[in-house]
């Protein structure tokens, strides 16, 4: 289900989910583990989602007592390694949604790689806050 790519999967995705935003919050975050089984690094240069007009890769960064969100232009998955997108760290920020995301929603996220390939991922929406 998670590997329903249009072409041969470039990266392996595990535990992919969209966090149900608290009511009134208009942004959602998506998390997953991305594994690169290849002997070369792979670079995601763009992230798209069918639910949202604006999608960004963000890194939550704590600096002293303050928290910042750094925008990443690209995400490199090192060779034979995994990158963890998890609460409090790296996440995909879903903004300007064209529909309200609920626990019944399905979201398709697409990764565009620097070699021109695209990989689609289907995600369910979960609520881990309650």
């Amino acid at each position: 289900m998670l590997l329903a790519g249009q072409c041969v999967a470039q990266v392996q995705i595990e535990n992919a989910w969209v966090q149900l935003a608290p009511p009134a919050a208009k942004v959602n975050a998506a998390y997953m583990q991305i594994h690169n089984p290849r002997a070369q690094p792979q670079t995601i240069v763009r992230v798209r989602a069918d639910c949202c007009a604006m999608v960004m890769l963000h890194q939550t960064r704590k600096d002293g007592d303050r928290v910042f969100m750094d925008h990443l232009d690209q995400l490199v998955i090192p060779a034979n390694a995994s990158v963890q997108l998890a609460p409090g760290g790296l996440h995909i920020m879903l903004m300007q949604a064209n529909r309200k995301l609920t626990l019944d929603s399905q979201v398709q996220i697409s990764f565009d790689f620097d070699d021109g390939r695209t990989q689609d991922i289907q995600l369910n929406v979960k609520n881990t806050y309650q």
Partner: protein
Amino acid sequence: MLKTLTNKKASLVYSAAIAVSLMLGVMFGAQHFSSPASFANEANIPTPAAPAQLVAATLLPEAKALPEFALENHRGEIIGIDTFRDHWSLVFFGFTSCPDYCPLELQRLAKVLNLMGKGEALQVLFVSVDPERDAQEKLATYVSFFHPQITGVRGSNVALAQFSQFFGAAYDRSAIVNGKVLTIPAGINLPVDVGDQYQVNHSTRVFIVDPAGAFIGSFAAPYEVEQMALDMQKLMER
């Protein structure tokens, strides 16, 4: 052992208080001594086997009384210093358009409230430092999702900046306008051309206010939910 330690600590606190009093003058000094020092109740520690040492909380050398302020709660009521009276409070600064950090933190604070199970004895204030996007109704829906004892707080940019500055909870907002990063400092209204896609860089500390309305310490992230609950219990039993 514990007694010796706390005495040492207490004497340090008092030395500091004396030094400050000397600098600020006798009048102000008298005020410091009359304010409830955090170690004043050490004689009341129930048994030596139950040390009142705090694990996650960091206490200020001396309590700092909150100045008067005017903000608005998520029910649309104007609130001031009285909102802190007669119960303990945990204060956290954030914003509702925060997809990652703030909901996680509010979830942790909701767990602390559940662990405490003391009804109205402890409240959590979630102060939005993003008043342009966090209207009252929005804030109400947002905080109620996490816990009924979480109060949403908003206000003018000026009032929010003063309130957060008192706690040392620095924040600012940053947007990309015409390809350049524009930083909007605390206290400044958001320029119209910024739109509604921007970042809020905010404090991660959870501040403790006692029932007398004094800021007494804080929890620095990351902390364990259980430890925060235990520390609050110790503080509330003093």
